């Protein structure tokens, strides 16, 4: 009987794996285009020169990023090369300090510290400007990153990771870019909270 013959199932395993792998490769090729900066879901790095928002998109039925008018980061408009350099550096900081082992990015990582997907848009930064004496949201974020222990407001603290000012600016740029990625609505309801404020 075919079903008790190992060769039947061996052939089944080979064909199943082959078909599924081919489909995965095809979908990967399509997805890689969508997730490249400037693709359908991921903005170019120069988006950090613009205002970012996160609103409900009735076409898709979930929240989506909205790219608005010019809003230079740290008062400087950057070209492609300069923006890419800043983003590259920001990611290097994130990796060298292993941020993903306390925080989550797009919900991936560790769960001890907040998710950073939309951290750029967090309504709390307004208050942080007063606390840190910074003129801008990005200025407050930089001050916090450079010495989180000084600005500890909760029982669970972030340690001082020796982040320099250029490194902090790069991380802030990274978070602003990340907030503009279309994540199919994750995290949900974020914009509702902003509306209530």
């Amino acid at each position: 009987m075919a079903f008790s013959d190992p060769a039947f199932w061996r052939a089944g395993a080979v064909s199943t794996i082959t078909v599924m792998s081919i489909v995965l490769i095809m979908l990967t090729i399509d997805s890689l285009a969508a997730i490249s900066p400037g693709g359908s879901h991921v903005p170019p790095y120069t988006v950090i020169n613009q205002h970012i928002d996160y609103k409900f998109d009735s076409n898709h039925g979930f929240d989506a990023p909205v790219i608005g008018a010019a809003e230079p980061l740290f008062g400087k408009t950057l070209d492609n090369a300069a923006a890419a350099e800043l983003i590259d550096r920001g990611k290097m900081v994130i990796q060298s300090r292993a941020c993903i082992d306390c925080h989550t990015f797009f919900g991936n990582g560790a769960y001890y510290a907040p998710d950073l997907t939309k951290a750029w848009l967090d309504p709390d930064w307004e208050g942080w400007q007063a606390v840190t004496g910074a003129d801008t949201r990005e200025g407050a974020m930089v001050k916090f990153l450079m010495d989180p222990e000084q600005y500890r407001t909760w029982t669970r603290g972030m340690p001082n990771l020796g982040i320099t000012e250029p490194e902090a600016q790069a991380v802030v740029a990274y978070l602003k870019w990340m907030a503009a990625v279309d994540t199919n609505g994750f995290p949900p309801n974020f914009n509702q909270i902003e509306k209530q404020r």
Partner: protein
Amino acid sequence: MSALATLETGLLLGLYALLSGIWGVLWALAQFRQNPIFGRLAVAAYGLHTLVALTIVLWTPLGIGWKCLIVGSSLVFLALPPMTWRLLESTHQNAGSEHDREFSQHSPRVVARV
């Protein structure tokens, strides 16, 4: 679409899967044990599984496609233990002689000369 209802859906999905496992284990035990209680408990477990599936279909905010998947999976879960069992019995019957049971023995069908 309530967020709490969606989260409760998650718990229901877990219960759905767990009951399918309990049905499978009890059904399998019923094949060995003389006591008919295992068979009855297996049916009861599948009954509960069906109830949970119905709750998911009728009460949760999942889309129609996902509800069809739940119903389809329930049918597969129903058939899976008996099918697996029949295949197990068939493979054991066709396992061959004591010679084949030797740990270091190589079944001639699958030995490849390298």
